[in-house]
């Protein structure tokens, strides 16, 4: 069993790693802030007690591969002033996923980590597999800019790339609504057999917003299984399937108002979009296929 525990250690699941490749205690994650003092040492939470910290919201975090949380509170004249929470998730996709789930549609967005946004007294961002949330208890003029500065300082101390997950880059840019990309970690579209997905909203010629998505299972052969499972699910419920073995469209009975769902099976991936004609869907498929080819050749 020693080996099992040692694997956990060597895999780096304890503490947070610095950008220079070495590991550093979580205490070093949190910069000093002029005029404020630390309230004790950072507090740590894991999957078994995250609930103690954020109650029912913990369930969403757990669904997104939450591993640990380091939380540091700051005081000003003995009063609560600021709290910085650094959530660590299983990987970049999951950190992005929980960030995107809580992200307001209109930001305003700031350049910190891979993406971040500001709201009064709040700066949130993600970088690598970390999701960082900064909240001020004070109402001080100009503090939001200071919080952004603090966020950047924390981002510098975190390991990981300042990029979206690679799969987000496979979703074509043409017509994509800015900051609509998201990662759903499980039960995509409310169907357990679809597992996880990357999705984004697209504007169409008529002005409607349609959802396009990309299923990219870790095991490429599972793409065909998902594709077939979805078609079978719809057929069992009386849907009429149109298409051939690689591209099909049907109405999911739970998404009738969204129109036809088009699905295409690619090499190791499934692309889908609701409510568009064959031509528009083909644009999406071609875009994904092209991006996958570029990625493979690059």
């Amino acid at each position, binding site marked *: 069993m020693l080996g099992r525990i040692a694997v956990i250690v060597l895999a780096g699941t*304890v503490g947070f790693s610095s950008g220079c490749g070495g590991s550093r205690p979580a205490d070093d994650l949190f910069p000093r802030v002029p005029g404020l003092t630390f309230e004790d040492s950072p507090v740590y939470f894991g999957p078994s007690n995250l609930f103690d910290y954020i*109650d*029912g919201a913990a*369930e969403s975090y757990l669904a997104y591969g939450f591993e640990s949380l380091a939380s540091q*509170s700051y005081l000003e004249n003995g009063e609560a002033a600021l709290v910085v929470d650094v959530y660590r998730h299983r990987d970049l996709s999951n950190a992005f996923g929980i960030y995107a789930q809580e*992200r307001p549609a209109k930001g305003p967005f700031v350049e910190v980590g891979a993406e971040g946004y500001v709201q009064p007294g709040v700066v949130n961002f993600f970088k690598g597999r970390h999701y960082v949330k900064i*909240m001020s208890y004070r109402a001080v003029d100009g503090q939001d800019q200071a919080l952004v500065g603090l966020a950047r300082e924390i981002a510098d101390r975190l390991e990981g790339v300042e990029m979206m997950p690679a799969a987000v880059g496979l979703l074509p840019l043409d017509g994509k609504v800015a900051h609509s990309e998201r990662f759903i970690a499980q039960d995509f579209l*409310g169907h357990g057999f679809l597992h996880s997905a990357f999705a984004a909203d697209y504007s169409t010629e008529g002005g409607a917003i349609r959802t396009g998505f990309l299923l990219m299972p870790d095991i490429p052969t599972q793409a065909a299984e998902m594709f077939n499972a979805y078609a079978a699910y719809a057929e069992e419920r009386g849907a009429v399937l149109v298409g051939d073995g690689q591209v099909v469209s049907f109405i999911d009975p739970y998404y009738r*108002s969204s129109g036809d769902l088009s699905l295409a099976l690619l090499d190791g991936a499934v692309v889908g979009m609701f409510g568009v004609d064959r031509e528009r869907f083909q644009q999406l498929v071609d875009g994904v296929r092209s991006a996958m080819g570029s990625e493979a050749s690059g």
Partner: protein
Amino acid sequence: MSDHVHDGSRRQFIVGGLAGLATSTLAPGVLIADDGAGKNASVPTRKLGKTGLVLPLVSMGVMNADNPNLVAAALDGGIRMLDTAHYYQRGRNEEMVGNVIKDRPRDSFVLATKARASTVDRSHVQDDAKATAETKESFLQKVDLSLRRLQTDHVDILYLHSAKAPEHVLDELVLDAMQTLKQQGKIRFIGVSTHRNQAEVMRAAVESGVYEVVLTAYNFRSRDAATLEETMAFAASSGLGVVAMKTQAGVYLDEERTQKIPMQPALRWALRHEFVHTSIPGFTTFDQLEDDLEVMANPLMTPEDERALPRSDRVAGLYCQQCEACLGQCAAGIDVPTLMRGYMYARGYRNLTAAKDAVRSLRLEAMPCSGCEACTVQCPQRIDVRRRALEVVRLEALPDEFLA
């Protein structure tokens, strides 16, 4: 009370195929539930205490769902009450619910949300409302923001979110704000939700004379279920509505995540007493919704359910609850709760430094358990103390640099 039982089956939710779909998001062939006025008596209902609201035994905890079609299908399937909270998904959850309900008649559903107060719990949870020190005004603003997100002028139940002690329930700022909101017509009923010290919180809610609904964690794995049930019964008999959450106790029975909790039996277990007026399971798939709708129509536990549902005294808990019932039981005199706390740090929190510190604090002179053929410790949670002890004490041999 109309807690009668319908003898339908799962097929009743699926029969009819697609032909009977009345709306774009309606689940295939689902039953239409009682609307509260007895127009459709096919689904058992219970009255939510003195609120007078009549609800099916299954409602929806929306917190885990980010899918408006799932919420719409739940309403179309007969579920009447949706339960969200101000800070779930930083407000995106309320917004999603608002988009689902905005075109539905306001009296066709019951809406519950929750708000925290930093006077009660210095919340580290981000609210979109300005995160300054809580005042009555800031609490009222928070609720106004919830109403805007929900696209409605009132919620039926506003819970004080996650009260952990009687003093939280009786917090003057909260009581004052809640009563103001009620006078303004922005909330119909005042509630409190609780996950910890539930019995004390519920008794305080009753004694306050202000609260009308309690929302409490309750499932087949609840610790000290007898006390909890006694208090829930007391609350119900005092006129409070009693809503159960966490009714299925997670997804897996075991730490290794190999044994799935039988969902329908678990939900039926939580509904077997009439003092539980409704429940808010948090489903995320349409299959789970269909399962829960079947329980809604057929809430009585069957012998098969009884057999499928592991009794709490037969299931090991995930981690030591530090109840200290084992103190003095170890033949080698080891402080077992501390050792088990170390195990929890290692496996639950992945904090090996803290785990090693816990082990080190015991100043063990030899490998524990090595002199015993059988373990003398009897854990009320049925934790395999010997196995965990042998695993965690080996941390002491790991060099500190591995833990940095």
